[in-house]
């Protein structure tokens, strides 16, 4: 009797196990299909337009074949400015938290501040930017205002990845360097940072992908006006100079948002084309992050 019960029990839990594994496999299959469907749908809808002649090389004002040249340039330029500002600050903040942070309220207040920044809705960052950078500091609707808004939510992501990367360096390397009489600063610069570099670079590139697609924080800071650029301009203060950080700019993501709001004929195709370009850029960032991380890791360990 007891034996039969046990048999039945074993059978039952065996079956449960099989069913559970089956369901889990289905879920994973569903997620993969969903991912593939999203990517393929966007690419199929947009590829025709994205590959059409002039789309990547014409300004959006072109009468015959409006393109996204300036939006593409502005997206990368905005990203560059954002990284130039946010990487050093995040690096410093992360080093402080890992190496120097005294265990007191100041440190915990600082890390709470970073945490707050990470959970802020991007529209709130955009609103703040539109009031503080645009009006209070008087920079107007400009690339720098947009880049600073983007910086505000890139910093928490970067600080966390860099912190993680530094903490993942084996403790023994850190202690050995200190024991040899190096200061914390020297230890950080000469031992910790090189060892953590692959992970840091990967983190920066992945965060770049997220910054690249942000729109809500930019609508009210860098604006949604298609730029009109003159690449021959040498006057940095001119609003047509592509590198002037005080001119308004429109990124790819904002361009999609704006076009969706303005129903001129042919807009839908441009929306999908732009979405496909944006998606490919973001995918490239992901691939680049992995390749770069691997490459750096190999070089640094080989030395």
């Amino acid at each position: 009797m007891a034996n039969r019960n046990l048999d039945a029990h074993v059978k039952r839990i065996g079956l449960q196990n099989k069913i559970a594994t089956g369901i889990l496999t289905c879920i994973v299959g569903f997620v993969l299909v969903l991912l593939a469907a999203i990517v393929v749908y966007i690419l199929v809808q947009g590829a025709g337009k994205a590959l059409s002649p002039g789309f990547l090389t014409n300004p959006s004002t072109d009468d015959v074949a409006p393109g996204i040249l300036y939006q593409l340039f502005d997206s990368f330029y905005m990203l560059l400015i954002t990284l130039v500002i946010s990487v050093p600050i995040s690096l410093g903040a992360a080093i402080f938290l890992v190496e120097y942070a005294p265990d007191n309220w100041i440190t915990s207040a600082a890390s709470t501040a970073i945490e707050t920044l990470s959970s802020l809705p991007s529209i709130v960052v955009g609103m703040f930017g539109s009031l503080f950078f645009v009006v209070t500091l008087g920079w107007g609707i400009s690339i720098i205002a947009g880049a600073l808004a983007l910086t505000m939510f890139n910093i928490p992501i970067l600080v966390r990845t860099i912190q993680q990367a530094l903490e993942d360096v084996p403790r023994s390397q850190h202690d050995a360097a200190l024991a040899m009489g190096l200061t914390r600063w020297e230890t950080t610069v000469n031992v910790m940072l090189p060892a953590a570099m692959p992970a840091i670079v990967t983190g920066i590139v992945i965060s770049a992908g997220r910054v690249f697609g942000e729109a809500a924080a930019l609508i009210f800071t860098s604006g949604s006006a298609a730029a009109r650029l003159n690449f021959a301009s040498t006057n940095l203060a001119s609003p047509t100079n592509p590198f002037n950080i005080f001119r308004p700019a429109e990124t790819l993501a904002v361009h999609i948002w704006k076009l969706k709001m303005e129903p001129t004929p042919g807009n839908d195709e441009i929306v999908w084309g732009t979405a496909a370009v944006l998606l490919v850029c973001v995918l490239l960032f992901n691939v680049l992050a992995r390749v770069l991380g691997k490459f750096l890791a190999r070089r640094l360990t080989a030395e």
Partner: protein
Amino acid sequence: MAKLMPKRSLENVGLTVTGLCIALVALVVVTLIVMVAQQGLATFLQDGVDFWSFISGGNWIPEDGRFGALPLIVGSFSVTLLSTVFALPVALGSAIFVVEVAPGFGRRVFQPLVELLVGIPSVVYGVLGLSVVNAAMRAIFGEAAGTGAGILSGAIVLAVMILPTVTTLSIDALDAVPNEYREGSYALGCTRWQTVWHVVLKSALPSLMTAVILGMTRAFGETLAVQMVIGGVERSMPTGLLDPAATLTTALTSGLSNATTGSVQYHALWSLGLLLLAMSLVFIAVIHLIGKKGAKKRG
């Protein structure tokens, strides 16, 4: 520690530079909170809108001077909770699969692919939602769905958006469960499912809850994707899942373009921003609370 002067000054330089970086970040956050609070509180202090009627009023009709944010609050919470309900089983299932069933495939192929979903910009999700999800709603529910825009559409789009966040964090949570627990369970003759259900999930619970809260934080703050698919009706309370509605974030985006600076409408929008800010602080507090409880349980 070296006692040489240059070394000490070098150390001081390092301390100062990195300390300044973190001080700068903290300063920016404080400025943000102060400015949002200043503008947001002006609605109540300067324009004389009653705080209680702001929170509990059921009609957001700014041009009539009626500022009842409850429909927006309800909208925000319903899309957030609903999207979590949709995303959680899928995220958790995938995480269990990755950690317990097929770690090789999961780690090397599945996880990187899921992380790609994080990178897809929210406007792109919005455009997708507008053309696919809304159309599907109309096809399934017919006339009752109206234009197809509504809470359900918003929740579906958000569920896809938070899926990678919750999945990745759940994978980390399950991964952090010590292998000895599993070995002990298997040694007792438990099947994999029993081990997962009774041992792994239980001990990973606090970190799983953190994963869920972080996903909710993202859903709560998401703006443009929701705006395109939710219908944007702010004037009265939504009464069903197919009802068009608005959230705090969508009311902000559409309102900011129509309000003139310094007006009551403008201040009221900042009050919505202040509510959003307060909510993200609450989410952080909850995460800390869970962390503390988890630590107590373990230690």
